[in-house]
């Protein structure tokens, strides 16, 4: 099989950047697995759910509904609400797809638009490189699925200290993605600062606190990004790098 020059290295880069994601995923998935066990899922079911869905809050909601014996339409509706932010992320990714990219990639890339993999994919300069995305998926998705299955199998066996420490890996990565561009561009720095502040306020305000974290994320993302687009519109073509 012949590969285009650079294709292998993009995959390897994806694997490298996927490692911290995988570590964080493993710890988070482990606690997700505990919730799945409470809902009566077998390790195999948890593994399959995690491979297919790759979504933390979304899967947590799914397992809770399964445990409650919910109707299928309820699962569909709640999945739609808890995961709607991926719609925005995929819209953002669509703007970075090169016209030369083969169509099939759109369907594969879409399988793992997670907060973290989206984050590193969009942080990579230039057009979207599907092989980079796949490299990250190749380490992160198995860690996610394995963590879920082991959580169901073993419950609370990882020391709490380790879970606590590994749990912040994902946030560390978010910082690595948003801080460097914020250093370069005032508009991005203001977006990040406003994001921190509003997210904190929204989580504390009685009226907004009752909304799920996923819904708050969507509302704040749409509101603040729209505001930023009005106040700091991007220049025409060739911007964004």
């Amino acid at each position, binding site marked *: 099989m012949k590969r285009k020059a650079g294709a292998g290295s993009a995959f390897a880069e994806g694997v490298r950047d996927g490692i911290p994601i995988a570590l964080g995923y493993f710890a988070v998935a482990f606690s997700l697995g505990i919730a799945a066990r409470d809902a009566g899922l077998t390790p195999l079911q948890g593994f399959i759910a995690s491979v297919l869905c790759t979504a933390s809050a979304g899967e947590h909601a799914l397992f809770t509904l399964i445990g409650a014996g919910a109707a299928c339409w309820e699962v569909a509706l709640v999945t739609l609400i808890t995961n709607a932010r991926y719609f925005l992320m*995929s819209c953002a990714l669509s*703007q970075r797809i090169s016209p030369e990219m083969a169509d099939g990639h759109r369907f594969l890339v879409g399988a793992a638009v997670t907060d973290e993999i989206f984050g590193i994919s969009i942080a990579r300069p230039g057009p979207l490189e599907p092989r980079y995305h796949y490299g990250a998926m190749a380490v992160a998705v198995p860690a996610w699925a394995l963590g879920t299955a082991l959580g169901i199998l073993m419950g609370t066996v990882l020391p709490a200290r380790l879970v606590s420490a590994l749990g*912040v890996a994902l946030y560390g990565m*978010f910082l690595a993605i948003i801080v460097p561009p914020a250093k370069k561009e005032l508009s991005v720095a203001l977006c990040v600062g406003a*994001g921190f502040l509003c997210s904190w306020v929204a989580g504390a305000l009685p009226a907004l606190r009752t909304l799920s974290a996923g819904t708050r994320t969507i509302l704040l993302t749409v509101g*603040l990004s729209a505001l930023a687009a009005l106040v700091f519109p991007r220049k025409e073509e060739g911007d964004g790098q």
Partner: protein
Amino acid sequence: MVSNYVYILVAFGVIYAIRVLPLTLIRRPLRSRFLRSFLYYVPYVTLAVMTFPAIVEATAVPAAGALALAAGIAAALLGGSLLTVAGTCCAVVFLAELILVR
């Protein structure tokens, strides 16, 4: 009694549609300057919203998370890679909780 697999497939169908529809339906750069600007800012805002205060709430004691946040921002400002910044945050939490949590 609905099989768990049916639930899983329903959730997968919905979540995959959410992710793939924009990627397959939006086939060219958007013309609207507002929409392009909006989508440019989306990743930064959404990741910022998800990071704070969640990072402070993810640890056994909030102080450990707050230290990790400060250390992570410092490491990223200094040009640390994804692995470096994430590893710094983990190490800071581990050390802080060794001292703060008995």
